[in-house]
């Protein structure tokens, strides 16, 4: 097995690049038991059904970190060869036995850091089969700029020095040689939201991170709902006023409900649920 066949280089990464989704098999009770054992996380709520029920939960549930593990699997597979500097996640919703999680991700930032550290941030998240956001996170990687850069660094030489300006100049030259194309506009999934430490300090060098005092994390609830709302609201508002008057301006509530009920059974799964639903509290 050759592992370096597929390498991800900084020069090939664009903000907005999406990772192919990773659909995991159902998280069944056997997997929960195996994971709890492997992780050494012996919270009785994960494995002791009577205890979970007595504590007010409908059943035992999976450790939230298993979803984070799926995000790491997705990101590690896509970024092969890159160095993971930081992985943050918020365990938003319970993972119940039998849940099918899909891990997704996209590049939200790409930056030239001091010391020729070529860095990118991936927004990663997992949804369950009901389209609910289960886990969301941010993964920060450092990459080789190019194959040339990797060769140099593996030979013990300093990294290739490329500035943002140099890259832009080179790209501009390349695009002039090509016929004009309208850039493919991909609908952003969701504006990036800061995680626990609102702005992670730039990871210029590990040493700096080690020394850096981390900002105290803010109350999750507040940050979450504040950032989640603006994304969700405009989307929900738009279609409503358009449709309502068109159908029957006389009544408001009745016509709205009637057509919604019929197709509810079928198109529900078809209709892509909002990819990043405004996350609230655990239910």
């Amino acid at each position, binding site marked *: *097995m*050759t*592992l*370096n066949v597929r390498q991800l280089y900084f020069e090939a990464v664009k903000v907005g690049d999406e990772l192919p989704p990773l659909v*995991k*098999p159902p998280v069944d009770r056997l*997997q929960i038991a*195996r*994971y709890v*054992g*492997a*992780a*050494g*996380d012996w*919270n009785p*709520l994960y494995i002791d059904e009577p205890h979970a029920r007595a*504590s*007010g*939960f409908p059943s035992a549930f999976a*450790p*939230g*970190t*298993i979803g*984070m*593990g*799926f995000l*790491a*699997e997705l990101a*590690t*597979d896509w970024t092969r060869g890159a*160095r*993971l*500097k*930081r*992985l*943050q*996640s*918020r*365990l938003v919703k319970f993972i119940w036995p039998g849940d099918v999680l899909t891990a997704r991700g996209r590049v939200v930032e790409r930056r030239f850091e001091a010391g020729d550290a070529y860095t990118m941030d991936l927004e990663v998240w997992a949804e369950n089969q009901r389209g609910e956001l289960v886990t969301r996170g941010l993964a920060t990687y450092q990459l080789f700029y190019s194959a040339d850069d990797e060769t140099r660094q593996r030979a013990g030489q300093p990294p290739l020095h490329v500035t943002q300006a140099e890259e832009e100049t080179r790209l501009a030259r390349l695009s002039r040689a090509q016929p004009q194309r309208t850039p493919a506009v991909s609908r952003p999934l969701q504006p990036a939201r800061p*995680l*626990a*430490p609102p702005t992670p300090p730039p*990871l210029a060098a*590990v040493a700096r*991170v*080690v020394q850096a005092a*981390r900002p*105290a*994390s803010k*109350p*999750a*609830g507040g940050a979450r709902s504040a950032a989640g709302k603006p994304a969700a609201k405009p989307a929900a508002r738009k279609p409503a006023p358009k449709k309502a008057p068109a159908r029957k301006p006389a009544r408001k509530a009745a016509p709205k409900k009637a057509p919604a009920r019929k197709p509810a059974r079928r198109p529900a799964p078809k209709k892509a649920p909002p990819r990043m639903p405004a996350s609230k*509290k*655990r239910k």
Partner: protein
Amino acid sequence: MLDKSLIGRVSEPVLHEVEKGAIRRFAEALGDPNPLALDEAAARAAGYPGLVAPPTFALTLGWGERFRHSLDLGTRSMLHGEQSFEFGRPIVAGDRLTVRSKVADVQERSGASGPMDVIAIEDEGRDEQGVLVFRSRATFILRRG
């Protein structure tokens, strides 16, 4: 309510020897087929001295039961709310990491089912040269009642 004076409480340093079997079992439990975590030959071919742990394997090296018991958190339901890691380098089989844990924060928050306590634990793992390998921060929610 949890005692705010827990903030700053630190654990004894705990030495963890990272075993390849533990890495393999962790990857298998996640269903992660990454050969670097399962196949030693593949890991060596990629330039690592042994199996490479999946990132969240660092959870297994976090605060131990002894430290947890010393904090006397009671028997309330404990929910893992947030988790983050920083890595100096990947964790590989054969690593001997010394991990220190500490209570980074204790807070009271109001939730749907009444007030909750939130405790943040930070772990730091260093190798035998004292170089930082990983740092972890976990937030747990303790329900009242």
